């Protein structure tokens, strides 16, 4: 609440600065706007920017360093024996101090030193907040005043404001790069740490996956084997089932929509199918676990087959349903991009509609369709919630769709949800899996986008 009050105050100051900046520019020329270099509002904006931006930058820096500085000061005030604790124990103590100062539940017993440290922490935080308030507001006022005082008739206010806006636009567009770099770095760093403990070859080619590492050396069943082949096999199996469901249905419905359906039918049926694309994956997961998986299990029992209640079939079929609209809308785009002249040529030779579709349109649209299917595959590989809720947990190297298999995303979730320590191979394995997942989907997307783009250029 404290920070938001400050931000609101700063915004208020900025609007005041705008008003006074504009007023001063007008009074400089006695109300004759044409004597100014820029429109009066630009002088106002310039003043407001000077008032707000330095103060906001200060606020951001202050907030990001406040915690560590204050913690450092609290550590210094702690008795010697606590200061010399190993870092992770010290972190625990500090956590307790923080909780104590906020009046939350504390894990250890509260003694005199803890209470003192908590009080010290509270008072330091209070001082820091007060100081921030005063410093930020005075910076805003001083910078705003200075900017307002230095307004002259010839000042190129518009150019400066536009430059600032341009800088904002440019930096926004580079955020995408930073996101990618952030993903790569954050996944890569932890993966490197993982591969220091587990050799890359074992991870990539090992046939057994059982990430439970032993806490005590004599523990049973805690082998800690990290061979990722069963996970990728499971992912591929579910993806394959999903594609078997999604590609024919998606492609055929796109063809029907584009070539046969009346306009009336299209406007009715298309939005309904697109509803499938808007349903959150967690809903599909619930649907798979509650309805589809028991259905397949009962069906299997009736015809004498044992179907696991977490079968790859159920997860794959539901994932396929999820991907239908994706395949169909991408195919729709490429089918519509095939020039009408090619259809007319085929009809002119006496071909029926289906012959035209099979012999002319699909071959012409094939690269685009393949690109779309690749995008769909990459989507199926990265899909998480359906498999988390409907697929199994234990790694099982099998090609039988009636058995339970696990996937890469399921393992990432199970390894990272819940309590975690950040240096065990178990947690780091999730990052290594994510790295492989990222590389695979990236490669698929690159190839798919390349194919689609190349194909589009052909007919443009």
């Amino acid at each position: 609440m404290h920070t938001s009050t400050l931000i609101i105050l700063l915004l208020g100051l900025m609007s005041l600065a705008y008003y006074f900046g504009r007023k001063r520019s007008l009074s400089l020329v006695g109300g004759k706007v044409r004597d100014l270099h820029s429109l009066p509002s630009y002088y106002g904006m310039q003043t407001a920017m000077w008032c707000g931006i330095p103060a906001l930058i200060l606020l951001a820096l202050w907030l990001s360093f406040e915690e560590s500085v204050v913690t450092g000061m609290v550590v210094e005030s702690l008795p010697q024996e606590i200061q010399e604790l190993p870092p992770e124990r010290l972190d625990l103590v500090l956590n307790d101090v923080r909780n104590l100062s906020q009046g939350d539940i504390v894990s250890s017993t509260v003694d005199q030193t803890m209470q003192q440290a908590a009080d010290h922490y509270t008072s330091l935080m209070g001082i820091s907040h007060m100081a921030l308030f005063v410093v930020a507001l005075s910076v805003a006022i001083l910078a705003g005043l200075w900017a307002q005082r230095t307004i002259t008739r010839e000042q190129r206010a518009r150019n400066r404001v536009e430059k600032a806006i341009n800088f904002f636009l440019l930096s926004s567009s580079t955020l995408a790069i930073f996101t990618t770099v952030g993903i790569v770095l954050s996944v890569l760093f932890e993966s490197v740490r993982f591969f220091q403990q587990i050799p890359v070859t074992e991870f990539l080619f090992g046939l057994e996956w059982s990430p439970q590492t032993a806490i005590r050396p004599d523990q049973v069943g805690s082998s800690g084997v990290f061979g990722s082949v069963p996970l990728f096999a499971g992912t591929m199996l579910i993806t394959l089932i999903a594609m078997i469901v999604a590609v024919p249905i998606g492609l055929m419905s796109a063809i029907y929509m584009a070539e046969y359906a009346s306009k009336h039918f299209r406007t009715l049926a298309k939005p309904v199918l697109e509803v499938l694309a808007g349903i959150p994956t967690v809903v599909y997961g619930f649907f798979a676990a509650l309805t589809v998986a028991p259905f397949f299990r009962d069906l299997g029992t009736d015809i004498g087959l044992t179907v696991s209640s977490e079968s790859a079939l159920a997860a794959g079929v539901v994932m396929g349903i999820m991907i239908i609209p994706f395949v169909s809308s991408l195919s729709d785009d490429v089918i519509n991009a095939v020039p009408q002249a090619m259809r007319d040529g085929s009809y002119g030779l006496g071909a029926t509609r289906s012959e035209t579709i099979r012999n002319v349109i699909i071959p012409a649209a094939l690269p685009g369709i393949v690109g779309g299917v690749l995008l769909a595959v990459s989507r199926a590989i990265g899909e998480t919630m359906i498999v988390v809720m409907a697929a199994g947990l234990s790694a099982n190297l099998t090609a039988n769709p009636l058995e339970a298999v696990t996937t890469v995303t399921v393992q990432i979730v199970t390894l990272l949800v819940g309590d975690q320590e950040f240096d065990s191979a178990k947690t780091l394995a999730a990052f290594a899996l994510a790295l492989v997942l990222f590389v695979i989907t990236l490669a698929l997307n690159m190839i798919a986008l390349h194919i689609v783009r190349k194909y589009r250029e052909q007919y443009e």
Partner: protein
Amino acid sequence: MNNQQQQHQKTMDRVQQGLDRRYRQERHFRWLGMGAIILGLVFVSFLFITIISNGYTAFQQTYVKLDVFYDPEMIAPVGETNPQVLSKADYGGLIKASMRDMFPEVTNRREKKVLYGLISSGASYEIRDAVMNNPELIGTKGEVWVVADDDFDMLIKGHIDLRLPESDRRIKDNQLAWIHDLQEQDRVEKRFNTTFFTAGDSREPELSGIKGAAYGSFFTLLICLVLAFPIGVAAAVYLEEFAPKNRWTDIIEVNINNLAAVPSIVFGLLGLAVFINFFGLPRSVPLVGGLVLALMTLPTIIIASRAALKSVPPSIREAALGVGASPMQTITHHVLPLALPGMLTGTIIGMAQALGETAPLLMIGMVAFIVDVPGSVMDPSAVLPVQIYLWADSPERAFVERTSAAIMILLAFLISMNLLAVWLRKKFERRW
């Protein structure tokens, strides 16, 4: 001449011969297409029917009427108004006493415990609140409607199969008899389930609600919108209007297209590594969730905004430049207002995506069991899809209907957001 005619007839005959087969193939192909669409429609309707038929009962809750004697010995002397004293009294004891009065034949200790179990453990808080609001109740007798336990509720709603042997049932035969007695006396009633909309999460299905998750979703989306919309529009404007055509711009473009297809769980790992481990932000708070979802929806918003900017005809820009506007003025005064509806449509669709997203939020710890309704972006909270995931994992039958009901509410939000986007597009769409 004759020969030629013969040959011509032969060709026609061959065409005629094949015609039946070709028309048949044509029909089959058509049926195949129709079948694919019908299958898709069947999937949609089947999904909705399952969810609705499972979930509609969650909007009702079974209540039981008890005759409660507000015993001064158990609460406080008549005339006591000090809230501290009142809040500490044993209200559960009042309910137990009332149940004992109703079923005097139950004496066995174990049976008594089962009997008390028919009433939700939240009922004592209801009575406490009633007494604290009106301390004059102490010493009087009154009728109170209290929430029934989830198994009782499930029985009334017909979700418990009575044909199963007793040992397989959550409701035993003696409980059945008591419930039957209560029904005979008109003490059981189904009412609109207000708890579902006013409570946070709970271990007891009958006391759990979606308010906490809904607030969490609201705060998360707020952060996401505040960050993603301005940045996305700015990036689109730069790339579409100002960026020079060079390698750097190409790299940014390829990057945005690729980010749009990166699995959402990877964004969760980014959030975990960067925001939580590196910047030290707390886990499970909407602020971090909003940051992660903003990064995730950014490509969607940028791509939609660029399409909207592209659809503004160049003549508008040329006219503005012609009368002496600067390039920035051209954009901010003329192009941007015209492209705004398209940008908003894209943003709403992106927000709808973010509202339904679960996987990245699991990574940043938004799966914790949180009872309190969050009051700001820094309070730990769940969001609607995560709440659905958590409830779907709970074994109680009563959570199945609550999961479905929460899904219905989430879908209602999503569908109305999408309808808003469609309406916006229809209303402001311009053909140049």
